[in-house]
Each structure stands twice: as C-alpha cells, then as structure tokens.
C-alpha cells in the first residue's frame, strides 16, 4: 500500500531537484561572467590586488603608538652635571635630541615649521635646587600639540623617563635617614596576553585588513551592479527568466569569493608569512566568518548601487558608507569613550560585530562558541541589508 504514494513523491523530489539545479546553473552563469569581467577590468583588478597585499605591508610600517626618534630641542641654561645626565637619558630610539640656541624667536620658528616636536628647557640653578631638595626642581617642556596623539606620546615618554631618573637621584643616604626600611614602594607586575611583546604591527595590520575587507566587499558588488545599469545590460537580464534575487546573488557570491581569496593572500602570505602575525584559531571558522561578513557588506553594496546612476556616484556613496562603518566599529578607537548616543548606532556597523570575531580567532584562538553572539548579530544585520537591497533593486525598474 505504501508503494503508489511513494513513487509520485520521488518524481516530485526529482522535479524539485532539477529546478534547484537549474536555479544554480543560472546563478553560476552570472558568477562566471562577473569573474571574467573583473579579470578584464585592469583598474579594479589592480585596486583589489593592492588592498590585499601592498596596502597591508604599508600598514605594518605605519607609525602608531610607539614613540620613535621624536625631534627634541634642548635649551640648557644650567650647564650642570645633573642637566647633562638628564639630557643623556632622553635619547634614541625615543628621542632625537638637538641643541637649540637660547632664543625665544628661534624656538618659536622651529616649532612652527615642525622641525622640532618639543623643546625641553632646563632653567638656571636646576641642579642646586635638586640637590638641596627643599622644593621641586622645575623643568619646562614645550610640546607641539597639533598632532595630539604624538603630543600625548611625547608627554608620557618624557614623564616616565624623567620620573625614573629622579628615582636614581634620590641618594641612598638621604633615603636611609628618613626611614631604615626604605621608602614604601609598589611594584606592578604587567602580564600581557595575546600579544606578549605588545607588537603594534599585529594590531595595525589586522585593523587595516578589516578596513580593506569592508571596502572590497561593499565596493565590488556595488560597482558590478552599477556598471550594468550604466551600460544598459541590466535590461537584457531583466527580460530573461532570472529573478532579481538570482541576479543579486550571482554578483554577491562572485565578489565574496574574490574577497575571500584576497583575505587568504593577505593573511597567509603577507601577514602570517612575511610579518609573523599569529593565526591561533581555526582556519575554516575564520574564513567562514569572513564570508559571512563579506555577504553582510555586499548587501549594503547592493543597496548603495540602487541609489547610484553611474560608477562615479557609486564610488561616492560607498565612501560615505565605509567611513562611518570604520569610525563606529571600534577598530581604531575605544567604543567606551564614545558618547552614549553613538554607542547605540555602533550596533548598525557590521564591522563592530566583526572586530571581536577577527581578533578573537586570530590572536586569542577563540572557538565558535566564543564568537557566537557577534556572529548572530552580524548575520541578522546582513539579512536586513540584503532584503532591503533586493527589494529596492526590484522596485527601481518599476
């Protein structure tokens, strides 16, 4: 009795399978076409190659949180042993010390032209005050704060160096007379995890890669779709039996694969191979997440393309999207220090969810469970973008 009902079900299944195969064949045709077009578009191809190779290398060499050879002018009015000893401590590789003529006008000019980052002035009688120890000995540090980040670095490095030097100046005799057991002291034991040597390169290259994945996965599908509108080829696709979803998926899948390939080269060859950035988590998990993220961004790209009439416009719209995504992501800044209203908006930045995933897998060796929450949030966001993008894509030809 089971047999008769079984057979039609099989036939139905075969039909459904054939329909899916056909659906796939149609999308595959679009995917292959997109790859061929990208391979022949020299400008776009060079851009993609650049952002996943040279650009990452450049980011590795970019200055960031370490102070290196900051030009420091010194005016020594004391001409004492202590002054010379102090100047000796402010040396390479942190500072590049240069003697400066004691003249307010010259000083002003040097700072204005950016020839000096800071000027240390040691006043007359510095050593005497220091030795007498009745009152603190004054030093003056004039800093060019037009680059506030650099100014902050100069401040903290010089404070630390001068502080350490001051400690050595506290003569053991004087200390001993105060209290036999010595001065009360705290010793801080710092234990850095995930990046033991605090290598800034690890952080900067990963951040750059995240930025570039974002740019590529928004721009590539957006450009691919706009190009069709611009040249009028989209009409030929619209009268074909392709659904808008198929057209959009073809483009997204093709470009996600390109982004994956690019990231693989950037991570495998440039970062892991050349720059020794570690890869501590599961490779498959990581690239699955990159694919998911690229799809999320591609949804945004499709949405952007529906607003643009030509390639020039789509470039501008993509720029408008990428900047806030990066600024709101917490890649280059701390989310905790943002105003409260901004902290709500960051949930809309797909990169904000992808940042903990990447650092987690690459540096902390996180597993699937550890990154589940941001992954789910990112997926929801991506689904939203895609639905919006496809809906607008359908509507704009009506």
């Amino acid at each position, binding site marked *: 009795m089971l047999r008769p009902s079984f057979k039609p079900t099989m036939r139905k299944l075969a039909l459904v399978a054939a329909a899916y195969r*056909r*659906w796939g*064949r*149609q999308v*595959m*045709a*679009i995917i*292959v*076409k997109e790859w*061929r*077009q990208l391979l*022949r*578009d020299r400008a776009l191809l060079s851009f993609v190659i650049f952002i996943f190779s040279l650009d990452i290398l450049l980011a590795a060499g970019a200055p960031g949180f370490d102070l290196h050879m900051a030009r420091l002018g010194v005016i020594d009015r004391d001409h004492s042993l202590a002054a010379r000893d102090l100047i000796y401590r402010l040396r390479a590789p942190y500072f590049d010390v240069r003697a400066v003529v004691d003249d307010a006008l010259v000083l002003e000019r040097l700072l204005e032209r950016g020839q000096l980052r800071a000027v240390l002035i040691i006043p007359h009688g510095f050593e005497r005050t220091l030795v007498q120890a009745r009152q603190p000995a004054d030093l003056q540090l004039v800093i060019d704060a037009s680059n506030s980040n650099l100014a902050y670095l100069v401040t903290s490095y010089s404070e630390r160096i001068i502080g350490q030097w001051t400690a050595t100046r506290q003569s053991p005799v004087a200390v001993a007379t105060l209290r036999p057991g010595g001065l009360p002291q705290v010793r801080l034991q710092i234990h850095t995890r995930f990046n033991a040597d605090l290598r800034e390169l690890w952080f900067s290259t990963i951040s750059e890669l995240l930025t570039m994945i974002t740019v590529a996965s928004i721009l590539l599908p957006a450009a691919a779709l706009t190009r069709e509108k611009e*040249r*009028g*080829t989209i*009409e*030929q*696709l*619209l*009268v*074909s*039996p*392709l*659904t808008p979803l198929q057209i959009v998926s073809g483009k997204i899948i093709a470009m996600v694969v390109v982004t994956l390939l690019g990231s693989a080269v950037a991570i495998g060859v440039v970062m892991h191979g050349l720059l020794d950035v570690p890869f501590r988590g599961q490779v498959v998990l990581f690239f699955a997440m990159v694919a998911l993220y690229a799809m999320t961004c591609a949804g945004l790209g499709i949405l952007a393309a529906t607003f643009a009439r030509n390639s020039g416009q789509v470039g501008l719209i993509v720029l408008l999207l990428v900047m806030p995504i990066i600024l709101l992501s917490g890649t280059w800044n701390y989310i905790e220090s943002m105003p409260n209203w901004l902290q709500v908006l960051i949930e809309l930045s797909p990169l904000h969810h992808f940042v903990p995933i990447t650092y987690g897998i690459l540096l902390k060796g996180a597993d699937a469970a550890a990154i589940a929450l941001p992954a789910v949030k990112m997926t929801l966001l991506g689904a939203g973008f895609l639905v919006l993008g496809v809906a607008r894509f359908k509507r704009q*030809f*009506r």
Partner: protein
Amino acid sequence: MENPALIELSGFSKRYGKTVAVHDITLRVERGQLFGLIGADGAGKSSLMKAVAGVLAFEEGSLRVFGTELNSERAAEPVKARLGFMPQGLGLNLYPDLTVEENINFFARLRLVAPAALRTRKEALLAMTRLTPFRDRAMKYLSGGMKQKLGLICTLIHTPELIVLDEPTTGVDPVSRRDFWLILTQLIQQEGLTALVSTAYLDEASRFDALALMHNGRVLAQGEPDSLSQRAGARIVRLHADRSALTALATHFAQLETHDDEARVYVECDDDLQAQQQVLEVIAPSSAQSLSVHLPELEDVFVALLRSLEPLSASTPHWTGIVEHAPVSGDNGHAIYAAKLTRDFGDFRAVDEASFTVNYGEIFGLLGANGAGKTTVIKMLTGIVPPSAGIGRVAGADMRHAGQAIKERVGYMSQAFSLYTDLTVKENLLLFAGVYGLEPPLAEERMRWVIKLGGLQGLERTATGSLPMGLRQRLALGCALIHQPRVLFLDEPTSGVDPMGRRHFWDILRTLAHDDGVAILLTTHYMREADQCDHLALMFDGRVVADATPAQMKADFSAEHGQLLEVRSTNPQQVLSALQAAGFAQAIQHGHHIHVMTHEPDTAVLRIRAALAAHGLADAQLVAQALTMEDVFVQRVLALESSHRHARARSRV
C-alpha cells in the same frame, strides 16, 4: 574661375594606437557646398570631422581649411574662430539643466559675440527653428529633434562660415529629421554657409550637393549623389515572380532583395534593355510580372561597393528546425495581443490605450516619432515595466501574472547595444545560455547554431567591443535567440549598422519569421526597413493611429493625397519657387528633387511643365515616383501634429 576649396584633404590618415581610423583620404569641399560623409559606425567619419574642426591631431597627409594648413595647434586657432562644430550624440554638447536661452547665451559668450548682435541673431535663429516658445524650457525636457535644433543654433550663434555637424540626425525620427534638413538647407542658402555633415542614413544622401561614401576608414566613392548612381554602371530590375523563379534569381545575382513575391535585382549592366535581358535569361519571361528597370539608388551602389570589398561572410541562414511548430493555445493563435495597453509615468501618459495583435510568422513594425511610446510598449510586453491599465498578452499569457516562465518564450534586444563588450563572443553566448538555464550539451548545440546563423564563425574568441556594429547586432540577436523564443522583440536593432549588415540582419529576421513561425515585433527609424515589415502600426503621442500592411498604408495615403511627382533639377531652389508660384503650395524640396503630391497627375504634369518653361527651367526632368514609406510616415505625422495642435488650441478656449 574654379570655386575655391574650403576644405582640402590629401593622403590624410589618422591612427589610434595600432588601429587605423582613417586611411589615405583625399577630399575637397567647395565654398557654399553641403557636403555629406556617409557611413556606418566606425567608418571614420568622426575622426575626419574632428580633424577638420581642429580638435584632433593626425599622422599623415595634409589638411587645409580656409587655405590654412592645419599642422599645429597654433595654426588651428584662427581657423576655429571661423567654424562651428557640433559633436556626435543627442545634445551631448549642451547643458541639460540650463534653459534653451541660457544654452545659447553661454555659447555666445564663449565665442565673444557682442550683446547687440547676439540679441538679433538669437531671435532670428529661434524663430527659424520654431524654438521661440520653448526658450525658457530646460534643455533636458526637449525632444530629440528639438535638442538637435538647439545644438545647431549654438553652433551657428557666432556666424561661422563653415559648420561641421557630426551625425546630427542619428536617433532622430524621420519627421524631426526632415525638419532639421529643411532648416539646415535654408540656413546654408541664406548665409552662404558651407557645411560638412555626416550621417548613417543613406536615404538622406540625396540632400547633399556632394558626398563621400565611407567604410572602414576609406572613401569608397565620392561625387554628386545622382552622378554616383549613374556612374555605378548598373540597373535595378524590379519584378514580381513565383518562389522558384526568385530562388533561381538568387543563385545568379549576388545582390537581390525579395519581399513576398517581389524582387529587386541589382544587374551590373549600363543599359536598360540589356539589364532586363540578363534577368529574363535566368527566369522564363512568362513567370515575371510587372517588370521595370530603374537607376540604382545610392544604397544599392553602396552595397555593391561593399560587396566587392568583402563578400558576405555567411550564406543565407537556415533555421535548423529546432523550434517546434506547435501553436500556442489561447488568443486565437495571436503571438502578441495588446488591448488598451496604457502606461503613466507620473502625470505623463507615455502609452495611451494601445491595441494591436501580432501573429506567429509575422514581422510587425512599430513606427513613430521619438517619444511616441514605442519603447514603453515593448518594455510593457517584455515585463520590464508593468502596465498602468489594459491587457498585454504574449505567447498566450498575461505578462503581469505569468511570472518567469513566460520569459522563456520571449527574446528581447534593447535599443542600446546590450551585450558585455569586455567579454568575447563565446563568453556572451555562454552567459545567456546559462541565464536561460540550458543544460551544457544543449547550450553547446545552440551556440554552434547561433554562430552559424549570425555568420560569426572564427570570431568566438574576439572581444565583443572590437567587433563592427553589424556583427555586434547579429550577436545580440543570437543571444536573444539562444533559448529559441516564440516571440522576439527588437528595439531599433539596426541603428548604426552599414547597409550590407542591415540586409544580412533582415535575411535572418525573414527566415525566423517566415520559415519558422517566430513572431517579431520591432521598431525602426529606417523607412526602407518599415517597407519590409509584414504589418505596421504607427504610434503618435502614445496612441496607435494606423494599423495596416505597408502596401495598404501607401494605398490609403495615395487615395487621400494622390500621386507623387518628382522634379529633378540642378536648380532646385528656382524650381521650388516656380512651382509654388504656379499654385503647388505643397511642393517640398528633397535635396536636388522637388516632390509634389497630386490627384490629377496628367493635368499636373502639364501645369508643371508650363510653369518650368515659363521660368526658363525646361531642362528639369519630371518623373512619376512610387510613394516611399517615408513620405507616408512624415505626411501622416505632420497631419496628426497639426490636428493635435488645433485640438489643444480649441480645448484651451
């Protein structure tokens, strides 16, 4: 004294990298001439014109304009002040957001026209082009024909002695085209201008004083239009015959056009009788009916010249019989059924209750001026744009509800070339085979078929962008046919294609329709192509205003307006005024020819002869001409336009 040459080229060549755009051209344009450059896209017309206008450097030969050798940018500067140049493309040199008047003022200031002179000249030119009522309208809201007229004003505002116009009539409908030519001719006569004008329409050739036929960067022939036809040393024999006789003719004469039972045979023979004899040697005299011998038209001459350069790359195509002939049920066998099809864009009604039917095996031509609604009709029937009201059924299914399945029975070729120029021929075909979900073995088979059909053998690996227009269009047709649709939509499929390419394209269309029962709906601005359709519908202002076979349309028109008489003279201007004085107010100048419509040809002939003799123009020839589709189209649309204006004026009162 010989008329001084205004433009002189000798041994002129221009290359772009390795590509030779223009090769070894020698040309001479005299003062006061309307000189035409005729050729398809890529013939080298634009490069030649840009060089003359002093905006393009060239490699070889010499080029003299106003007697000045243009061999450096500095030499070109004084020449530029004395000429006006209008580049190719509808309104591309104008600013869309500026009004008509602002555009004119801008070009005048650019050319340092004095304000007082500008005021009078602007008014004169606006009045002449009938753009005065539109002076405050932004350029982007003008029709194609009006844009070109505005372009002409901007080119003429500084009173140049020479104007260089690059394809001013491309993409413009026949009515606006005729209007443009009338204005241009008038201006040339009034101002003693010299004009170098290029066109892709061969039927405009008779409007020039002299012309050069260009192909692939070379000049194939040059001279006066009439003398070119005479010098060809050939005759056109027209006749009606049965199918077997036509087949026999096709094997003997390489250049043959057939339509139903009618044939036009190009016979390379300089004598009427001998030409007739040569045709009758091939078929039995009894099987030929209403045989007549004519001088070849310029298009025939052009095709003959092209044929001598490159013999047809493909033989007449034959359908492989893959399409099943099973009629699709419903709609009484109509392939396309449109009933009160309407589409609004905001307040603007683009298509207004259009109704027509197309049968399987029929080539259906949709004619109309720019903006008449043709493209929107096609977009509704292919499902790109949903109709606001009315019914559109294609292959038995309503386009609005049929979904994706119906699209597999429909093929579409859009107005602009819509293939991927960065992909090769084979890759484009692979893409569309995939898009239509063909299984790999079937896709392979269809691709071979399309390549054979389009004569694209050996070009499979060529980038589509580097193909000549004719081949591109055949490939586009091939891509639209890869799934073997039952209904085919073609929106201006042959614009920019050389005449031989167009003929080949039409051979394929006829095979598809007549042998394999495919329904074809197309639009065209070439009235010769309209003549080849099985059925025509004329659209005006979104409505279908006429719906008949070409022959029926002409017959109706004849019944209404009479017989067409053509007066040929070396002095058309005097002939025109003589005829108008003699009471033929409707006489129209058509290049060197004057056209007169009359219900009583016999008495009219006598009256014309008398009028000509009285003005000492007895050398003019008088010929009774068959009506062309263009005559019918232009007259009909003009009549509709004037009644439209009257209706609007009445409704305003």
